[in-house]
């Protein structure tokens, strides 16, 4: 496990959304769906962020985050050269097995999980991302480099008007993916669960929950998962953050 990252750049890419790239040695096993647990200089409790992108050759790691509370506010002020104690790669990541045709689906900030897929797997990718409005769009350029990209906005200010899942539903019977990898708000995941069922397409989703240790020991980040016919509290940091969408118990 790695422990150190050094900030190279930290910029606002959309209202309240920042992209931080850091110098970091990337362990071989790092893959899409892993996360990094960062300790801010002024706070003790770490903050987890999905690894948006990484490069083993360039030795860089990228996270995209929203400034929401005290911790992320502090994070957004870190300048180039700041060294941070960061544990990574954590979590299970997306296990795509032999999938060759992959749909990447991101809703809002959930889009941040997707770019690392291109570095992690050899496959044909189609990406679908959805946002409230044009100003909220993030990572479109990065995702368009990896394959076809469909952008949706709820207000129609850019791309297709509507939800990202409307677009997925339309394209899934045409393109017939082997697997869907997704991240986004619960309403999006609920719609996706229906699509996954209707079209019998394996769908993996990355979840989040308030965390403690990040390594599976404190059992604080519990999420209800239906496994072997029973509902259990599993750990997002260790048993996840990626789960089969059909196992997720939604509210």
């Amino acid at each position, binding site marked *: *496990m790695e422990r150190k990252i050094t900030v190279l750049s930290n910029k606002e890419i959309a209202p309240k959304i920042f992209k931080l790239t850091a110098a970091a040695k990337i362990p071989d096993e790092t893959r899409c769906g892993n996360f990094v647990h960062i*300790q801010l200089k002024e706070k003790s409790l770490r903050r987890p962020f999905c690894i948006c992108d990484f490069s083993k050759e360039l030795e860089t790691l990228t996270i995209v985050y929203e400034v929401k509370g005290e911790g992320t506010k502090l994070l957004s002020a870190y300048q180039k050269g700041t060294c941070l104690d960061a*544990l990574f790669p954590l979590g299970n990541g997306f296990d795509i097995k032999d999938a060759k045709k992959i749909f990447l689906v991101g809703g809002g900030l959930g889009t941040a999980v997707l770019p690392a897929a291109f570095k992690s797997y050899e496959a044909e990718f189609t990406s679908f991302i959805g946002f409230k409005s044009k100003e909220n769009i993030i990572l479109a350029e990065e995702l368009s480099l990896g394959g076809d990209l469909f952008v949706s906005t709820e207000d129609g200010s850019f791309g297709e008007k509507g939800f990202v899942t409307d677009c997925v539903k339309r394209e899934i019977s045409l393109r017939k993916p082997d697997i869907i990898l997704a991240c986004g708000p619960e309403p999006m995941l609920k719609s996706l669960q229906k699509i996954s069922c209707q079209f019998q397409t394996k769908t993996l989703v990355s979840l989040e929950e308030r965390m*403690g*240790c990040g390594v599976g020991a404190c*059992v604080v980040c519990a999420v209800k998962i239906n496994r072997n016919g029973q509902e259990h509290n599993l750990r997002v940091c260790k048993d996840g953050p990626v789960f089969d969408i059909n196992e997720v118990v939604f509210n």
Partner: protein
Amino acid sequence: MNKNPLAVNIAGVEFKNPLIAASGTFGYGLEYSEIYDVSKIGGISLKGLTLLPKEGNDSPRIAETPSGILNSVGLQNPGTKAFVNDYMPKIKKLGTVLIANIAGNTLDEYAQTAKIVSESGVDMIELNISCPNVKQGGMAFGVEPDSVRAVTEKVKENSSLPLIVKLTPNVSDITKNAAAAQKGGADAISLINTISGMAVDYKTRKPILKNVTGGLSGPAVKPVALKMVWQVYNTVDIPIIGMGGIMSYTDVLEFIICGASAVQIGTANIYNPTAMPEILSDLEKYFKDNNLTLEDLKGTLIV
């Protein structure tokens, strides 16, 4: 001199050093053993066990507070059967003292759990009495001294292992509870468990924890813990294991000076997975540089 200056014997159990991982922060030792060799530390107080599996509370189960955290995990654990069959085979070779922390909602549950755990291969039992007694209106077992004595006696009756009774600070006079535990047959006392607290989101006007209230731990509680360790040290004759906000080797020294024979480190692990080996290294250096042993410092607060 070859004697290990950090070694300590508590209730007949030999610890290579006085650092024990606190229950609930270290699982059953498996996760941290992927990060470092846990045989380095003195012991592990394992995640609290109940007779049957428990799912625990709904998320969010953690809130950040000034100099600490609140948790409301709710004793999620696989139950005694899974502990004995699935976990013990994996952890008995970890090379450190294993302390099973047990909890229950009735005296009978405590008795049954103690019996099963005694035969599991662990070295000691730690009694978690912060759980509600469902047969007595839900007040925690650890609140009334008589209740503390009754649970302690019950567990002693059903177990052959040395027993540590873990006290809750959410009481009016912890020295009475400590005395009651000793009277009930406790071989050692550990304190403090978490302090009851709450965190609020002023924008949503909702509590941060789904369970509304939780237990406070971390540096914020250290002053309360030190005072209580000191008070209990002056009350009982049995060894004391102190805990509450230990983040560094100097914190460890403070607890020893107040009367602790050993300490538990919990929240520090959540902040920094390698906290314990780091604190151990600093502690070893301090004892070496100052030519001291644990016994030289224990209970030497000058008042």
